């Protein structure tokens, strides 16, 4: 009896003014026919400490950010048995409660999908050349301190 063939690992990176919807994200992951699909959505938070945010403005070194996201996905696939994964990051103004970043991972079992997805968002925030400027309710703006 032969072993059923798996589809090749599929990655997707999109960085731009618009990103696909959550329905499209789940459709992308579901094609892996795995047992665990984990989707992380980073959204603009309204309250940070004692200040109220109205929007975040994102900018990127787009070609480098795309290349680095591809490298992150490849590294994740070396650490966990990833079937499908994507990183989608929006640029420009993202108002409160809207999604700035979607990261999805499909694996055969849930634990590795959670682990890989957590690693991807955590590592993106330290390695991918994207920056955000916060606009507050009082009209002030400020670049958010970054980290490597």
């Amino acid at each position, binding site marked *: 009896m032969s072993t059923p063939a798996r589809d090749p690992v599929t990655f997707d990176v999109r960085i731009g003014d618009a990103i696909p919807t959550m329905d499209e994200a789940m459709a992308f992951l579901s094609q892996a026919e795995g047992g665990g699909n984990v989707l992380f959505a980073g959204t603009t938070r309204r309250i940070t400490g004692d200040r109220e945010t109205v929007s975040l403005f994102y900018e990127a070194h787009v070609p*480098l950010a795309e290349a680095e996201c591809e490298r992150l996905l490849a590294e994740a696939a070396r650490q966990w048995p990833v079937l499908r994964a994507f990183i989608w990051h929006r640029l420009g103004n993202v108002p409160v409660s809207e999604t700035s970043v979607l990261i999805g991972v499909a694996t055969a079992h849930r634990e590795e999908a959670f682990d890989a997805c957590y690693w991807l968002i955590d590592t993106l925030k330290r390695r*991918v050349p994207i920056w*955000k400027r916060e606009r507050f309710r009082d009209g002030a703006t400020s670049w958010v301190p970054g980290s490597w």
Partner: protein
Amino acid sequence: MRVTIRYFSHLRSTLGCESESVEVADGAIVRDVVDNVAARHAAVANVRSSLRYAVGTSFVDAAHELSDLDELALLTPVSGG
């Protein structure tokens, strides 16, 4: 040879420009160009220790040798996500 330097985020805001083109000696390395830029822009000198560098779609270190028409990005710590 000529190299284009690109700025992002608060460096771009503070300097008021996204890029500048500079003439550098053949065989120049990233550190030479950053010395030149930091001497002209206090905003760059002030954050120099936190910068990372990229040429094209690759991160490079300060000893990386540049080529004519390279695009060198000066990257401040990132805050995406």
